[in-house]
């Protein structure tokens, strides 16, 4: 990793490492482009001129307005792609910081996916805003005053198989058969036993999750259940080793005035013995924005 201090200006695509790309394809080329962070609502009082932020690779961020909405962009000539993980992480943090700042300055934004780049200059961005204006304004109006929150529930000490036997006859029965059988059949029964343990744990998680979703329903506009393990765990060696079993991960779309109510609804869950609740936000509504466009063809 590069070690020359924090935030060395990332070099975009065309990296030395680019040749390592599995399919060997180079990134798309552009002469002039605008990296799009988010679209926001603006009026006379909005700090369009005053808004300042540092972009993904240290570029100055600007605001392009048209018809009561604005795109938060920076000027770029290449897509951002790198095999240097540290660099990708820095880009992602910057992207999120800019969208966050825009959200604070202008209200709930429509956040765009990392590396969304419009071909052309500011004028092209304006044209795009004009062409998509109706859809964008509608979406902004719908999201106004709403933010994304994330909830992760972890059970520090999930019940052991022995404890599950106490309440599940089938499992207790399998245990007896294992204890009373010879080596050959014992192996098969053990497999059945493991499967039963997994099923019971799954049921338990589903129950706890359903209970939580119930508690949150009246305070949220939308609740989505996410994969239990974040991408981090897939690659192994996640940065934060957490003990216990993840019961569920939820993402919520919440009106800002309901934040406290959501927190209060989580309290009784967090108070349970051995349960840890992580509640984060407010974030831009990344998971609650649709695919846009496609209507121009």
């Amino acid at each position, binding site marked *: 990793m590069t070690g020359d201090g*924090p935030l060395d200006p990332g070099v975009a695509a065309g990296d030395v490492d680019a040749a390592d*790309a599995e399919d060997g*394809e180079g990134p798309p080329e552009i002469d002039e482009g605008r990296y799009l962070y988010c679209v926001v609502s603006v009026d006379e009082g909005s700090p369009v001129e005053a808004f300042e932020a540092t972009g993904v690779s240290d570029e100055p961020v600007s605001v392009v307005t048209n018809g009561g909405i604005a795109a938060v962009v920076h000027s770029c000539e290449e897509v951002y792609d790198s095999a240097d993980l540290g660099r990708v992480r820095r880009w992602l943090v910057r992207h999120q910081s800019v969208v966050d700042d825009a959200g604070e300055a202008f209200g709930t934004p429509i956040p765009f996916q990392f590396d*969304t780049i419009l071909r052309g200059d500011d004028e092209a961005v304006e044209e795009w805003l004009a062409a998509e204006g109706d859809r964008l304004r509608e979406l902004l109006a719908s999201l106004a005053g709403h933010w994304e929150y994330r909830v992760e529930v972890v059970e520090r000490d999930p019940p052991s198989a022995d404890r599950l036997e106490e309440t599940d006859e089938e499992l207790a029965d399998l245990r007896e058969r294992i204890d009373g059988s010879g080596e050959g059949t014992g192996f098969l029964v053990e497999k059945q036993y493991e499967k039963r343990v997994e099923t019971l744990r799954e049921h338990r998680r589903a129950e706890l999750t359903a209970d939580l979703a119930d508690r949150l329903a009246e305070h949220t506009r939308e609740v989505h259940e996410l994969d239990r393990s974040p991408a*981090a765990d897939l690659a192994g060696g996640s940065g934060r080793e957490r003990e216990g079993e993840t019961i569920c991960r939820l993402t919520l779309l919440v009106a800002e005035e309901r934040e406290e109510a959501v927190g209060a609804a989580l309290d009784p869950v967090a108070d349970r013995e051995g349960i840890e609740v992580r509640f984060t936000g407010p974030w831009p509504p990344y998971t609650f924005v649709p695919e846009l466009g496609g209507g121009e063809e």
Partner: protein
Amino acid sequence: MKPSKDEDALVDLLDVVLRDGAILRADVIVTVADVPLVGIKLSAAIAGMETMTEYGLFSEWDARRRAAAVDRRQYDDGEHGPLDVGDESENGE
């Protein structure tokens, strides 16, 4: 309980930044679906997050947030979101 918006929380969000967010399909857009390296290396990138602090990135992130809070007072009505970044920091320079 109150929501937090600290480093751990941000780390969790980064895969969201990459995978979610509005996706734009328009003829003005540079196709990013095929950007090779970012996609391939993503899981690994997120996984190595513990090293972020080493880059000094998070202290920078915090510093920017505090600066933004100061700027905001100039044009904001004073109603801020509940940002949990802490008003004091042990900024070890």
